[in-house]
């Protein structure tokens, strides 16, 4: 047995991990989710802004990270819509565009009273990474000229009085890497003192901790952060718990549903680490290592 474990083919571990993720998913295992302080800060930042505040939402991720970021991106859009904030969408990744369209679909179907151009709009993608961010600070009209639908910005009612992102009360960034939250902090939030909150992938989360609590007011770290945010949103706006929202293509509990497999997979990981160390110490004691 010890010999089998010592020479265990890693493909068995892959299989175990697959089962650990698949089973809770098939059994719909879910665990109670408690709001964490990070998610509370992010929620309160958006919640405490006066209704109708201008918010820039930059969705800087692509389908490769949508498992982690899509739930929080959709939760941000729903929360802002509930608060009647003016939403200005944009992205620094070419494949971020379809992600914005998902948010637009939610706004069109769940908030029909909100109108494109008056309550929300989409600048679309612009190449240039951090140079784009720097330009958003200087002049949005020169940078974009038109919105995603090629309508002149001058003809969009909610652009009246908006020249740069300094006219926004908050930046919300969903980030999967570079360019992303770090660049928004470096080129917009820090030099211009614009508050920013972010939802980021697990890989990025520890790297952004030094920017807390200023200029990064709060961050949702990976799927755990998204699940906590969804929980707070549901507690405050109970209609999001109704089947119409839960069963929607972009569910209001998407992140919470993904926490069940997460829990079991983490148990497996801990078990494997303990087992690996156990074998190592046994071998060392016997003088084999």
């Amino acid at each position, binding site marked *: 047995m010890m010999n089998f474990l010592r020479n265990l083919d890693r493909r068995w571990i892959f299989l175990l991990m697959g089962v650990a993720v698949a089973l809770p998913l*098939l059994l719909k295992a879910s665990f109670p989710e408690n709001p964490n302080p990070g998610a509370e800060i992010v929620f309160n930042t958006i919640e405490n802004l006066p209704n109708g505040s201008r918010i820039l939402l930059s969705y800087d991720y692509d389908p490769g990270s949508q498992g982690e970021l899509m739930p929080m991106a959709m939760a941000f859009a729903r929360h802002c819509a509930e608060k009647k904030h003016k939403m200005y969408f944009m992205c620094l990744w070419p494949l971020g565009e379809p992600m914005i369209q998902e948010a637009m679909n939610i706004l069109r179907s769940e908030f029909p009273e909100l109108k494109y151009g008056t309550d929300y709009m989409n600048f679309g993608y612009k*190449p240039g990474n951090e140079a784009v961010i720097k330009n958003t600070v200087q002049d949005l009209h020169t940078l974009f*000229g*038109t919105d995603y639908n*090629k309508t002149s910005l001058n003809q969009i009612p909610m652009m009246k009085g908006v020249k740069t992102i300094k006219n926004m009360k908050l930046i919300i960034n969903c980030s999967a890497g570079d360019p992303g939250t770090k*660049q928004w*902090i*470096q080129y917009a939030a820090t030099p211009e003192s614009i508050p920013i909150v972010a939802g980021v992938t697990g890989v990025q989360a520890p790297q952004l901790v030094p920017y807390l609590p200023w200029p990064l007011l709060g961050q949702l770290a990976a799927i755990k952060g998204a699940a906590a945010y969804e929980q707070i949103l549901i507690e405050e706006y109970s209609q999001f718990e109704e089947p119409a929202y839960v069963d929607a*293509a972009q569910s209001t509990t998407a992140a919470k549903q993904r926490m069940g497999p997460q829990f079991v997979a983490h148990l497996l*990981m801990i078990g494997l680490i303990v087992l690996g160390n156990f074998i190592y110490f046994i071998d060392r004691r016997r003088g084999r290592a």
Partner: protein
Amino acid sequence: MKNNTILWLIIFVLGAVGLAFAAINRAGETWVQETHMSYVGISSDIVADGVEKALTAQDEDEAAIQKAVGSLSGIGKWAPSGSPEADVIVQTATALGHGDDVQTVEWTEYKTVPLPKQMELLRETENATAEQKAQLTATLRQEGIFVSSGRTIGVWLAALFTLAIMSFLVGDNPLYKTAEAVVVGASAAYWMVYSFYTGIVDKLLVGLWPGLARDWAVPGMQADAAWDWVYIIPAVLSIMLLWRLAPMGGWISRWPLAFIIGATAGFRMLGFLESDFIVQIQHTISNLWFELPDGSWDMWASVAAWVVLIGVLACLTYFFFSVEHKGVVGKTARLGIYFLMVAFGSAFAFTVMGRITLLTERFGFLFRDWLHVLD
């Protein structure tokens, strides 16, 4: 038989069983609902003409025009056919003498039926006789609901590519290589086309030839937009950059390259200097004593601030190689290693969490959208 052969044999047998199960379960079958859309509208030129007339309105007739154009400002230039807003648009165009220029745009939208409803439809058609099935299909067709072959093929392709990529876990194989090549090719093409339109067309062409850009690709841009000479500079730099492809004079491309490197370096240095250097130092040392709203000592916040300060100093000592790591310096450097280990552990744990989430999302797609075993 070799271990690898056995493993592949098991996978192929499981795959065959899975595909048979998928076929029986009508895997990937996607229902859509078609909606006929019809909008009535008038062009920007007519509105501009109306605004001009309204501005010079003198008599009662012109006042009516003014009122009509004014009513447009609340509804825009397009409205769903048959709606009160559409009537206003038609009345306005007629009042302006452009009744014949009212345009009607029609198209059909196909929206995916929500998953619970799809599952319900699948169950209904599964247990029905051939006659009942035909009747149900006809009824649904009247509501505009039907199985979309295009989207069904799309779901199958997405599922097969997902499995092909996952097959790398067993070992490198042709299926994985094919899927990888498709991903790389499709992504590169998407990036290239999208960047061409958003960079070259939307910026360079709009800046240099606004009229051409408006007629060809950016119909919504301002009619009176003038060309901007500044865009000549990036245009020339772009041509110089592409010169390296020419058989002679490749050195010309070094100049724009030098400009890009210099500008990027300076640009990034400024960003890092402020947010990653000055602000970080300021936040690390500026506040080490925290109080609660009632004035009492906030122990945890204060301890956290001190831990950050000690951690920063210890890690800096570890990377300070001008003094030999012995005695106090050695011990501090050792402490720095512990802090670094904690940071790496935290980063690794977060990465694992992210990867598990991606796996969960893909399994969710396979079970829900493809195999229909989850609703």
